């Protein structure tokens, strides 16, 4: 700690602090422009100049100067004021006077500082900038005439996003921020740069001229897409979500978002949203009122339950409170067939982790990743499914020198981070690589074996996983494999990351078990600062597991329900917030199930392909219309708050469940989400310690920052198997999308609007195809036509197709296996 005096006030701060930070702590205001809390000190603008008695004779930039013992700082004097005003005059020499038409007006740091520092006239004259604006990309407008060269966009894109779109070019008055070769921006479109820009040089295009900042009502909620659980602050005007506001004050994401969170909100305003219940009459879906529709559902479900039974399939984007009510509905109907998210994808957590550690969740929280020394990611798609955790990984590497290794069948964004090594294995064989690492740890005596059960069995099972043999079999570089395993063992703190979701069903349990084994052998679970992270694809995947939206007792899981329905052995299906026809593996089976099942109810936002098959369709509400909680992939329970009313007669899923339960004869009613949350604690003990109304801005983490494992048991897993074929198809997530709902959002669709088949340059050359050509992909008895996208990510012989687009029918090829043998031809 260091003591210093700022404007006569005694302050004690950590020795890593800068003068600006010390002043902030002491409540002394110093104006800043290029400073940003989450970026490294830079010192570009000189607005923050102060006097330091020990450094007389010049003014010192407070945002870059570290404090030292006994410093005496003066933040305002006539000279300082004069100099700051001159700095403003310089900044304004070339700045265009666009304020009336500039969307930043009203929250522009340059405007505020001009006012604060009293720069009412300018002693200098210069030509105003007259550069063309960059409106090539659909999401971010770049108007360099308004840029003040603070460098925040350059820094955030490099330091946090790890993409590196921008840099300064030219000198003197000509200096500007440009992309490579000064072309239009083409990047991840996470929008971090525009959230950092203090002026109107970078602005969100979808929000262009929509409103003034002071007209927006801000509602803090949680992103409805992935399990990262980023805080999104809805900017609402006239009952419409117009934009997502920058907010680094609350939540776990430090104001960082991905393209889906920042630009993917528009599906909530989509004109195709369902506004009235639909009931099938004479083969046609026709509008009905709620009473009629709910009665039809209640009658249909009761009848089906008396017959061969009802199955309930849920999505993982309902709030915890709604999931609880859904469970009540299942009870009232009397069915034990309850499941979510296709039933297979979360088994890594519920069976894999549970078997090894006795807990069914990630063992640590996301901010801890930044402090780790070694990070192992399983499957390269982790960045694509959970981009903002990926940014934390980037910060761990850049700020703390962490080493990153990725075990995957293809390369991805993570591979581009500094020093990252991808252990590129043949598809389906990642499991073997993990096993080989475990074997190496045991062989070399690096493993921590104290208090770990099942070691002998594991040793026997690992007989076939001699690292050199595995390296040969999987195609992984032996030295990298060895080095990674040794690094993991030697690290003070390490993290193992894996994402799960609908397109990653194959070998889920096995991969999670192997990851847990590895984690146990290097002592991760329960250790402060280290963590094993199994991250769900959807915003409340963890909540669905915590609340037990799983087969009850002897009930059927999702796949068994679909099997039974396809065989005509199930009489009713209630599908909530899911579009299995578009997103579940094995579309033909799903289609058959929906075809055969006598009574199908679908509750969704849109008339999805699944909803089109239904007997009753109930219009539901989006996350922006709900009050409740989501539990993210690090077990953080956060508040979701309603920003807008639902369109037409649409109701929240919770309201529908309550009404339906009452129609079915239940007498239980709740006064609101707080009451339900209290009720959840009775079944889900981990939630019992929290009070809904006391969930603060950072949420609450059940089980604590570090979740202690209940047991430590390594479990033997056999290896994977590769497939033989001309090409090996893997499916997964694309960065711009999450699930299927993002295909209804303008932002993500503007960047990636179509399904595609990604293949390596070599393969493209051999097939003589280029970007945009149509190719036939055949396998599993089906043939699809997809547009080609040539990329650097894939090794020869491997092709990738994202699963988000219903029209692509990728799930007719993909039946849940880790990899599919296909042929690709022109």
């Amino acid at each position, binding site marked *: 700690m260091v003591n210093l005096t700022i404007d006569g006030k005694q302050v004690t701060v950590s020795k890593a602090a800068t003068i600006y930070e010390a002043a902030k702590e002491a409540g002394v205001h110093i104006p800043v422009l290029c400073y940003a809390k989450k970026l490294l000190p830079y010192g570009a603008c000189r607005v923050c100049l102060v006097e330091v008695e020990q450094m007389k004779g010049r003014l010192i930039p407070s945002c870059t100067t570290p404090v030292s013992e006994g410093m005496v700082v003066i933040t305002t004097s006539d000279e300082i004021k004069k100099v700051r005003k001159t700095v403003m005059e310089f900044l304004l020499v070339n700045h265009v006077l666009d*304020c*009336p*038409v500039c969307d930043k*007006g009203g929250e522009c740091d340059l405007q505020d500082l001009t006012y604060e520092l009293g720069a009412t006239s300018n002693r200098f004259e210069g030509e105003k900038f007259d550069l063309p604006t960059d*409106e090539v990309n659909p999401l971010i407008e770049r108007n360099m005439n308004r840029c003040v060269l603070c460098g925040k966009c350059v820094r955030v894109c490099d330091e946090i996003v790890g993409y590196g779109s921008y840099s300064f070019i030219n000198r003197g008055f000509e200096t500007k921020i440009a992309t490579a070769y000064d072309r239009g921006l083409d990047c991840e479109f996470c929008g971090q740069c525009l959230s950092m820009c203090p002026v109107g040089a970078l602005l969100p295009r979808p929000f*262009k*001229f*929509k*409103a*003034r900042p*002071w*007209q927006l009502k801000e509602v803090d909620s949680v992103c409805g897409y992935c399990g990262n659980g980023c805080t999104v602050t809805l900017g609402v005007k006239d009952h419409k979500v117009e934009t997502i506001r920058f907010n680094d004050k609350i939540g776990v994401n430090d104001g960082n978002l991905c393209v889906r969170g920042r630009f993917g909100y528009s599906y909530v305003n989509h004109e195709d949203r369902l506004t009235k219940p639909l009931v099938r009459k004479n083969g046609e879906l026709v509008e009905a009122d709620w009473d009629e529709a709910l009665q039809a559902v209640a009658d249909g479900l009761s009848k089906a339950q008396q017959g061969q039974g009802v199955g309930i399939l849920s999505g993982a984007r309902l709030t915890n409170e709604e999931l609880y009510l859904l469970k009540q509905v299942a009870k009232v109907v009397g069915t034990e067939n309850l499941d979510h998210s296709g039933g297979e994808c979360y088994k890594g957590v519920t069976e894999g982790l549970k078997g090894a550690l006795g807990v069914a969740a990630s063992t640590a929280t996301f901010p801890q990743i930044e402090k780790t020394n070694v990070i192992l990611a399983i499957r390269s798609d982790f960045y694509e499914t959970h981009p903002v955790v990926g940014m934390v990984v980037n910060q761990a590497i850049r700020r703390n020198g962490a080493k990153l290794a990725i075990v995957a069948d293809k390369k991805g964004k993570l591979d581009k981070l500094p020093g990252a090594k991808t252990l590129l294995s043949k598809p389906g064989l990642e499991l073997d690589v993990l096993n080989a690492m475990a074997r190496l740890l045991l062989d070399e005596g690096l493993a921590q074996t104290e208090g770990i059960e099942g070691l002998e069995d594991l040793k026997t099972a690992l007989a076939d996983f001699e690292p050199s043999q595995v390296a040969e079999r999987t195609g992984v570089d032996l030295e990298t494999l060895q080095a990674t395993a040794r690094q993991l063992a030697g690290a003070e703190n390490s993290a193992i990351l894996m994402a799960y979701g609908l397109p990653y069903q194959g070998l889920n349990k096995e991969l999670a078990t192997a990851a847990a084994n590895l984690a146990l052998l290097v002592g991760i679970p329960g250790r402060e600062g280290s963590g094993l992270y199994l991250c769900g694809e959807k915003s409340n995947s963890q909540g669905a597991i915590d609340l037990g939206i799983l087969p009850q007792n002897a009930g059927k899981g999702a796949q068994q329900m679909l099997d039974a329905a396809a065989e005509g052995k199930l009489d009713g299906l209630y599908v909530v917030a899911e579009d299995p026809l578009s997103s579940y593996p094995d579309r033909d089976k799903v289609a058959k199930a929906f075809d055969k099942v006598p009574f199908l109810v679908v509750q969704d936002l849109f008339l999805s392909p699944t909803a089109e098959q239904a007997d009753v369709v109930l219009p539901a509400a989006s996350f922006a219309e709900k009050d409740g909680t989501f539990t993210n992939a690090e077990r953080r329970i956060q508040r979701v708050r309603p920003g807008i009313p639902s369109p037409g007669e649409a109701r929240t899923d919770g309201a529908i469940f309550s009404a339906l339960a009452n129609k079915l004869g239940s007498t239980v009613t709740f006064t609101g989400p707080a009451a339900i949350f209290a009720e959840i604690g009775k079944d889900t003990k981990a939630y019992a310690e929290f009070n809904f109304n006391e969930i603060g801005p950072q949420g609450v983490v059940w089980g604590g920052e570090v979740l202690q494992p209940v047991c430590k048991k390594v479990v033997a897993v056999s290896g994977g198997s590769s497939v033989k074929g001309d090409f090996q198809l893997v499916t997964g997530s694309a960065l711009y999308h999450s699930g299927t709902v993002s295909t209804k959002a303008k932002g993500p669709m503007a960047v990636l609007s179509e399904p595609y088949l990604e293949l390596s340059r070599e393969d493209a050359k051999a097939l003589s195809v280029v970007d945009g050509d149509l190719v036939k992909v055949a396998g599993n008895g089906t043939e699809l036509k997809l547009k080609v996208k040539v990329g650097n990510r894939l090794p020869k012989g491997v092709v990738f197709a994202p699963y988000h687009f219903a029209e692509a029918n990728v799930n007719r090829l993909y039946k849940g296996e880790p990899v599919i043998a296909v042929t690709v031809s022109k």
Partner: protein
Amino acid sequence: MFKEFAKGLSITFKHLLPGHSTTVQYPTVKLKPSDRFRGLHRLVPSQDREKCVACYLCPTVCPAKCITVESAENEKGEKYPKVYTIDMLRCIFCGYCVEACPVEAIEMTGAYELANYEREDFQFTKERLLK
């Protein structure tokens, strides 16, 4: 004392003489209000559009909250008011909008004859205000 009375009354009587009256025969005769009079608003046109750039300062400053602006982008990519309406029934003629406008796009004219038969007729749309 009588002198003072006579002096005072002489001023009064002088006004009774023809040519000294201040009352005008409205509506046949109309006075021209002062240049600073705050009457009906007028949106100032520029070459091919209104000068207003839909900056929302006037609806923000308006104490009677009677101005409705909706901004949009025109073909040239410029910001313009798709909707600009003043509800004259609520306007208190304070002139703050004129003062707030950064581009001098709104001014107040001498027009004070604002009576109407229908409520809707008090909604002065962009087209009417541009006249």
